[in-house]
């Protein structure tokens, strides 16, 4: 029996539909990302725009290519569900804004071909494609992937115009030193490695800025706008609060405790929450339908796991940032979580046995 023969039969009930669709969901997620993205363009100028556009374009191109190669009959329909665009968009949000063009292309390839189509396409992938690409890029090309620039409004140099931006993007010329800047997490990590106390280090380092006036990816600089986008998704019921809140709690609680114990060694909860890809991860990555558990209990466990692992990697690992690693690790756990967190069937206990019938009810 194939789905085709199923649908060829007379249509079963229900004869009504709530109106939700995959493309509507994807559209809403993209809408939620829009403010942070626009803000990012303003902060980082044309090079950032080019990177964003090319990442999405290459994701879509690789999607079309894979679908054509596999001979999928519904190329158009699959494209219009908007999932490839979203993957590219999310990936772009986590890259250094001035990364060169080939990062976008290689990233698109890894995300779509290796992260998604190899598994069988939409709905079949175990790992979040954008995070797979992010990690693969970071591990393979550590240099361009850790080269951050300070937001332009903060810089003393003139904003690059369209043409020079294109040159920066296409030639991967070294970014002028005056432009580069460390992210807060990166700075903390290097200073700690040099044996410098965080209290001193942060004095001289980048400020923790709520309005994004500090180096980082789109997703990092505009953490507050990402949060707003997340709230929009909550209100429109695209996502539920379980996974995001769990991620934030999973980071904030250990961070707060550790910071209280040893402020010289551990960053504060606030710094953790606003840094790196955490907000993006909590609201847009941990809530990815395909790669997260599908019961609310499962989502809470999943989120807590991501948060906790992120904090552990950031505090003790070799990389300054750990959201992508944490997400992949928990993605791998999802089938297990799904296996153990099943909703209770009405009229049965958790093990699936019918409830006892009370005497003299």
């Amino acid at each position, binding site marked *: 029996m194939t789905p085709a023969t199923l649908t060829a039969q007379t249509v079963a009930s*229900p004869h009504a539909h709530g109106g939700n669709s995959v493309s509507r969901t994807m559209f809403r997620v993209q809408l939620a990302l829009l403010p942070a993205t626009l803000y990012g363009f303003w902060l980082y100028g044309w090079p950032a725009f080019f990177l964003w556009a090319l990442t999405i374009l290459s994701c879509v191109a690789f999607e079309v290519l894979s679908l054509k190669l596999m001979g999928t009959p519904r190329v158009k329909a699959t494209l219009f569900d908007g999932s490839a665009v979203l993957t590219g968009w999310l990936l772009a949000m986590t890259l250094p804004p001035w990364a060169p063009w080939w990062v976008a292309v290689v990233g698109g390839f890894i995300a779509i071909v290796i992260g998604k189509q190899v598994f069988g396409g939409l709905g079949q992938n175990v790992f979040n494609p954008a995070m797979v690409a992010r990690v693969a890029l970071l591990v393979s090309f550590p240099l361009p992937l850790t080269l951050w620039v300070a937001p332009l409004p903060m810089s003393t140099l003139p904003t690059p115009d369209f043409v020079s931006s294109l040159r920066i993007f296409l030639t991967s010329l070294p970014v002028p030193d005056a432009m580069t800047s460390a992210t807060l997490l990166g700075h903390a990590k290097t200073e700690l490695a040099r044996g410098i106390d965080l209290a001193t280090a942060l004095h001289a380092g980048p400020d923790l800025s709520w309005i994004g006036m500090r180096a980082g990816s789109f997703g990092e600089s505009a953490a507050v706008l990402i949060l707003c986008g997340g709230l929009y998704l909550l209100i429109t019921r695209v996502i539920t609060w379980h996974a995001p809140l769990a991620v934030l709690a999973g980071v904030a609680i250990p961070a707060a405790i550790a910071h209280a114990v040893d402020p010289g060694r551990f960053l504060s909860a606030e710094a953790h929450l606003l840094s790196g890809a955490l907000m993006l991860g909590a609201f847009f990555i941990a809530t990815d*339908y395909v790669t997260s558990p599908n019961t609310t209990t499962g989502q809470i466990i999943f989120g807590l796991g991501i948060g906790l692992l992120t904090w552990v990697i950031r505090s003790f690992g070799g990389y300054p940032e750990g959201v992508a690693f944490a997400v992949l690790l928990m993605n791998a756990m999802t089938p297990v979580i799904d296996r153990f967190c099943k909703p209770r069937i*009405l009229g049965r206990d958790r093990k699936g046995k*019918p*409830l006892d019938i009370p005497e003299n009810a």
Partner: protein
Amino acid sequence: MGFMNLFKHFLGDDWGVHPDDRKRPAADRPLRTMPVPEKLYLPLQQHLGGPARPVVLVGQQVKKGELIAEAQGMISAPIHAPTSGTIVAVTDITAPHPSGLTLPAIILAADGRDEWIDCQGCADPFALDPAEIGKRVAAAGVVGLGGAAFPSAVKLTGAARSKVKTLVINGGECEPYLSCDDRQMRERAADIVDGIRIMLHATGAREALVGIEDNKPEAIAAMQAAAAGEAEVHIRPIPARYPMGSEKQLVQVLTGKEVAAESRTFDIGILVHNVGTALAVRAAIRDGRPLISRVVTVNGNCANDPGNIEVLVGTLAEEVIAFAGGLKGDGIGLARRVMGGPMMGMQIPHWRVPVVKGTSGILAFDAQEVAAQEPDPCIRCGSCVKACPMGLLPLEMSARIRNSAYDEAVGIGLKDCIACGCCAYVCPSKIPLVQYFVHAKGELAAQDRNKLRNDATKKLAQQRQERLDREAREKAEAAAKRKAEREAAAAAKAAAEAAAKQASETAGATEGESA
């Protein structure tokens, strides 16, 4: 959506769905009664259980309310002539069934006189023995009018036997588009309450809880007024949510009790009936009238004049629609014909299908309402899991069914699925989940039947083998016996001959000696 719902959604207590109810304006129009049509088509199977057996002959004259087919088996219901006239045929017709399969039916040509038989009513039902009420309800062919069409008397007597304490009356009518119960509660509240009291008497239950969704304020007001004097009948407004009218959900919301899986509401002292059924029970007892008509909602974007219509059972949907004002543009834009509600009703192939006792609605949908679309792949969004009122994992079940792993699907709850359609309603990929479940249940039933048949064949073969063995054994034994006898006889003969020979020799010798 109200604030409470939003709050509940955040807590995760959000089973079911909140479809756009589309009940008005049909619900606000007064009931209309359709005149007797020329011909009535009465399928013998209008209820759950065994089909009825015709007791009339072609050409026979019958009166309105006369028995034309009797119940057959423990769970079954009789069928009565909805009007007076002549039986013109007993033959197969297209029945309300999605496959378009034909079912045997009695066809009755009306004579236009609409003449009743003598009805044996009862002025004081409360003086009747409860068992007698059960008998009369059974004889009147009353079945559940909410859709499932389970014979009501079976439930009433079963409930009396298991000593239920609470009667839950379903006035939820949670299916969108339908308003037949709503309309009857507004117009016939007193009779419904009377019917409920008769059912209380018949079952020995102490109280009746009438659950009415809060999107029907007029019905709630009317029922409250009618039940004002009755201490044991309580009207309970309940939140509008689909499938609130499903037995287990309704019982849980009204009584806080959870019906265990694989058991019935009786087991926790509760009996559930529909408001329409209360009316039918009342008519059966007070007036002695069998169930021959019901209220049907005609609705859908293609219906010219949506409303509720009292029609005789056996009337063709075509004629009901014509009476109700026809279809817009004579059916241009009609995308789907449905009998019952949009969530659980069935698609019918054409309009020449009769209304049966369980038909609550006739819906003419346009393409926009049906929103049919090629399914996309499952994106594991979990919407179906949140919506399922039974706590199942529709996405997992459908994935297993797609691989024909029916037993695994059963292992994760397929048998608990009530086919309410919430999962498919919310699925963004528009996967026909219910279709998968119905298909799998059908396959499993077929497997069971096959197994039974195989077992039976095996048993027969075994018996035959045993018989053959026995016969062979008996034959062998007989042969052995005969052989033994023969041998014994031969031996005896030989011995006799030998003896005779010896005797003659001896005699000869003696003779010689003597010679």
